[in-house]
């Protein structure tokens, strides 16, 4: 199971990470198996509802049957991995993605709409839809409530920077698999706990609908001034300030590699290192 991301990179990355291969954004990749399209119907509304109601029914059993709850959650996690999970990506990689994938469309965050019933108006849309599916957005106005705004790669980069500064984690959003078995890339999300469903599932229930990123953050103790700015930004509880040394300490096993700490560090004391360069972290996804 730990090999899932390595396999994905090997099979669809062609020497790079799977989400940086332009091939994975081209037209044939956007074809979904026919049965699946029929099953889920318009805008995949059924998929969402089934997933959330399924989640609720599992949580309902937590008190009476803790063992069953645990194994159900593990089962759900395995299903999510099978279906192609999303992945955390740092700002630099998100910028590379908007350079190779078209079209780019600013839309409402679907999670936030479901968890907080937030309707994002023009100036605060926080999700970036990618791909040919976006040309059909007018068909289902409910899905893109508040509208959709097509933007250029340059605008998309500014957009990503804006939300990064606000403290959002970028993730590659996937919707199952295409006929070729590759993950169907739906967009780049700007996520926040607890209103992001994927981060919530992962942090609170260990469901791997969201995989850790291809990097981990590492602190340069010579540069770290112990200001603690990074601690506040981590959504995965991976950073703590060590009291005696007065330096930031990152637990690399807990780190998701989003790079928010790196972006915010005033001393540039944090760097992102490829996960695969640490043998012990290769299976940590």
């Amino acid at each position, binding site marked *: 199971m730990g090999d899932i991301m390595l396999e994905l990179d090997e099979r669809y990355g062609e020497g790079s990470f799977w989400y940086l291969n332009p091939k994975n954004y081209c037209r044939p990749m956007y074809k979904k198996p026919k049965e699946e399209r029929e099953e889920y119907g318009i805008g995949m*509304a059924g998929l969402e*509802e089934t997933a*959330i109601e399924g989640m*609720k029914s599992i*949580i309902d059993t937590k*008190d009476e049957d803790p063992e069953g709850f645990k194994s159900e959650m593990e089962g759900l996690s395995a299903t999510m991995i099978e279906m192609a999970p999303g992945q955390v990506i740092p700002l630099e990689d998100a910028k590379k993605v908007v350079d190779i994938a078209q079209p780019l469309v600013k839309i409402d965050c679907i999670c936030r*709409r479901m968890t907080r*019933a937030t309707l994002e108006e023009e100036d605060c849309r926080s999700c970036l839809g990618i791909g040919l599916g976006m040309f059909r957005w007018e068909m289902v*106005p409910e899905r893109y409530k508040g509208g959709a705004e097509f933007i250029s790669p340059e605008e998309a980069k500014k957009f990503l920077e804006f939300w990064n500064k606000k403290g959002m984690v970028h993730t590659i959003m996937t919707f199952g698999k295409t006929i070729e078995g590759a993950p169907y890339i739906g967009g780049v999300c700007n996520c926040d706990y*607890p209103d992001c469903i994927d981060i919530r599932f992962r942090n609170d229930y260990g469901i791997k609908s969201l995989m850790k990123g291809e990097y981990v953050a590492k602190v340069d103790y010579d540069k770290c001034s112990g200001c603690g700015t990074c601690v506040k930004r981590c959504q995965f509880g991976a950073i703590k300030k060590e009291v005696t040394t007065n330096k930031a300490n990152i637990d690399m096993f807990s780190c998701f590699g989003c790079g928010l700490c790196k972006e915010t560090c005033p001393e540039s004391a944090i760097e992102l290192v490829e996960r695969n360069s640490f043998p012990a972290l290769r299976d940590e996804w």
Partner: protein
Amino acid sequence: MMPEIVIDKEKCTTPFECKKCLQICPQAVFMVLPTGMHTFRENEPEEYKLLAVFRDKCVFCNDCVEVCPVGAIQVKIILGGGE
């Protein structure tokens, strides 16, 4: 220990428009889902349902009960061990 969160669907008719409980909950326990989708038109305000999905995270603060304008939410504490 998990509370029982009862939502009276007769009273809670337009959860997406009201959204008070969704926004006040410190633990973000609730979710609002469309009950279906249509081509070329948005859902009516009645075509949503409120669910207490993450109720294992509820801390019994009772904020949702107090904020609900129609009194549709009940949070019941079930104590283990019987009587």
